[in-house]
């Protein structure tokens, strides 16, 4: 009998878990209370890490990042701009990290290239011209809306059901067993019940609150950390620019379409939806970004945003620098004597596939499904409109053929990459609703 699984949360984590489980043959339904990238997955810097950022102090994260950087580039090239990244040293202190950086990248199998100052400034003329050292790394930019939409479209083709704008009203319980969820479609107001063999709580920053309010489970002790990004609406570089030092505030500038996103500062918040960004952090980010790209000081910050992620303490005997993963699976049958539900907390978009694979293995073992994950080989589905299929595509999207043709032309004319076409993203995301 096919096991039924409900995944709560369609961020990068929940969407990849949905795809992973559906590809193994599970009967999966993913429920998302908002829209695509309405949560943390839509409020990050837009970077698909090469792992170089972690190479100096978290080799495991660095190794996983470069591995998934390659896989995601293969299975979802349509949502990636291969910008490359540069790590730049601006002073003697930065230079003191050179050997640690080189060693960490080597240990993590991250290919790096030490550029001459002259060639770096030729490639990136807006770079601070007093730069002392420059390394090229395989950082990339990812369109998270398109990435998550394609994951969900792929999962749908694998028979998963995708319910957006749908919130969990309560869990269906029989004794100590969770048997499903009662849900409400916020578009139609329709309330219904879904039964399942297992519920996976992948609601990220909302994970603890959800099961505390609905099930009285208090075993997930999470602290919420918001990461602030400041946006200048001009793009000055081809590459992502990283400061050569250990991870700290204000160490990246990501060129995202025509914008420059400066990240990040971290601060602790109580509620993932209600918090204020400190204006001083925005000034700090602009100053930190302009140390690498002085021209950023000449333009106003035209918007800023913050994404919230959970901080989870490692196990009592773990030191997270040595712990093998940056996420944690809470099996509530073991921790709270509540069966039929697990929670996933932590992780990051750049390594969501590896995390989903491990969670899929955990669920497979629990449910007696020994099918192995093949998500590293499955090309994600993203519609491609061409002269041969335009009639069929127009029909499937309920659009006039000429209108669809105009939209495709608009997308093809985008600077840098057609992955920045919001029109195509919105158009193809319609496939999730029919």
């Amino acid at each position, binding site marked *: 009998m096919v096991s039924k699984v409900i995944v709560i949360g369609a961020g990068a984590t929940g969407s990849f878990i949905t795809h992973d489980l559906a590809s193994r043959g599970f009967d999966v339904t993913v429920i998302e209370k908002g829209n695509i990238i309405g949560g943390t997955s839509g409020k990050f810097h837009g970077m698909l890490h090469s792992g170089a950022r972690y190479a100096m*102090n978290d080799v495991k994260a660095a190794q996983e990042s470069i591995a998934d950087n390659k896989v995601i580039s293969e299975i979802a090239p349509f949502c990636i701009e291969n910008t490359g990244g540069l790590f730049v040293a601006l002073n003697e202190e930065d230079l003191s990290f050179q050997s640690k950086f080189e060693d960490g990248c080597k240990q993590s199998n991250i290919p790096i290239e030490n550029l001459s100052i002259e060639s770096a400034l030729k490639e990136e003329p807006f770079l601070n011209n007093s730069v002392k050292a420059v390394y090229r790394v395989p950082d990339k930019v990812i369109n998270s809306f398109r990435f998550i939409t394609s994951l969900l479209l792929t999962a749908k083709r694998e028979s998963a059901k995708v319910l957006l704008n749908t919130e969990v009203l309560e869990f269906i319980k029989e004794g100590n067993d969770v048997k499903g969820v009662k849900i409400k479609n916020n578009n139609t107001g329709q309330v219904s019940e879904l039964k399942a063999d297992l519920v996976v709580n992948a609601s990220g920053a909302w994970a603890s609150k959800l099961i505390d309010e609905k099930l009285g489970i208090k075993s997930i002790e999470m602290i919420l950390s918001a990461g602030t990004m400041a946006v200048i609406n001009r793009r000055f570089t081809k590459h992502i620019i990283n400061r050569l030092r250990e991870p700290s505030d204000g160490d990246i500038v990501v060129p995202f379409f025509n914008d420059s996103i400066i990240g990040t500062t971290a601060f*602790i918040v109580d509620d993932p939806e209600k918090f204020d960004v400190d204006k001083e952090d925005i000034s700090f980010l602009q100053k930190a970004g302009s140390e690498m790209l002085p021209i950023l000081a000449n333009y106003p910050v035209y918007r800023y945003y913050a994404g919230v992620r959970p901080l989870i303490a490692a196990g009592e005997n773990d030191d997270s620098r040595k712990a093998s993963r940056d996420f944690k699976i809470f099996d509530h049958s073991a921790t709270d004597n509540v069966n039929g539900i697990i929670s996933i907390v932590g992780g990051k978009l750049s390594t969501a596939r590896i995390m989903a694979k491990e969670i899929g293995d955990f669920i497979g073992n629990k449910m007696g499904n020994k099918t192995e994950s093949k998500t590293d080989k499955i090309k994600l589905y993203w519609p491609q409109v061409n002269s041969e299929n335009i009639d069929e595509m127009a029909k499937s999207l309920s659009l006039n053929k000429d209108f669809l043709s105009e939209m495709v032309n608009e997308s093809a004319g985008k600077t840098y990459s057609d992955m920045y076409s919001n029109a195509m993203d919105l158009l193809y995301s319609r496939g999730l609703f029919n």
Partner: protein
Amino acid sequence: MEMTGSFTVDYRVEKVWSIVSDANKFAKCLPNVVSTEVNGDNFQLSFKADAKKYTSKFLGASYLSNLNIKFSAQLKEKQENKHILIQGDGSTIGLKFSLALYIDLSAQDSSTKIDWKAEIELGRMAKLFGEEVVNQAVTDVVNQTIDNLKTLLK
């Protein structure tokens, strides 16, 4: 949280006073100061602290390896060569803390005994890192400050 301690330096009380009563000089005793703004007895500092050993208990928190700390304070209760209070507020990763540092000097021939008492309100920071970790962090800062003071006296 309250911490106390005392130590003796082989310098006259007037010399020690010249440092602890001068915001510019006192700021130089504090570790990892990135920038200092002094206006009379008021001063603002920003620190960059290596926080790995405090934040490593959290999974995937390498982005918290280094923390920026802001601190604004005022020199108060000045009694020349005897007593001073350094009182201020600070914040890091959106968490606020306050500090009242009482320093009492007593001349002992050509040496000076320095008794200090720090009253620290950590708010949510204690919850985040745990009392023990914060105690260790504060002890580290105090020890480095005393070392820097001794170096400056030389």
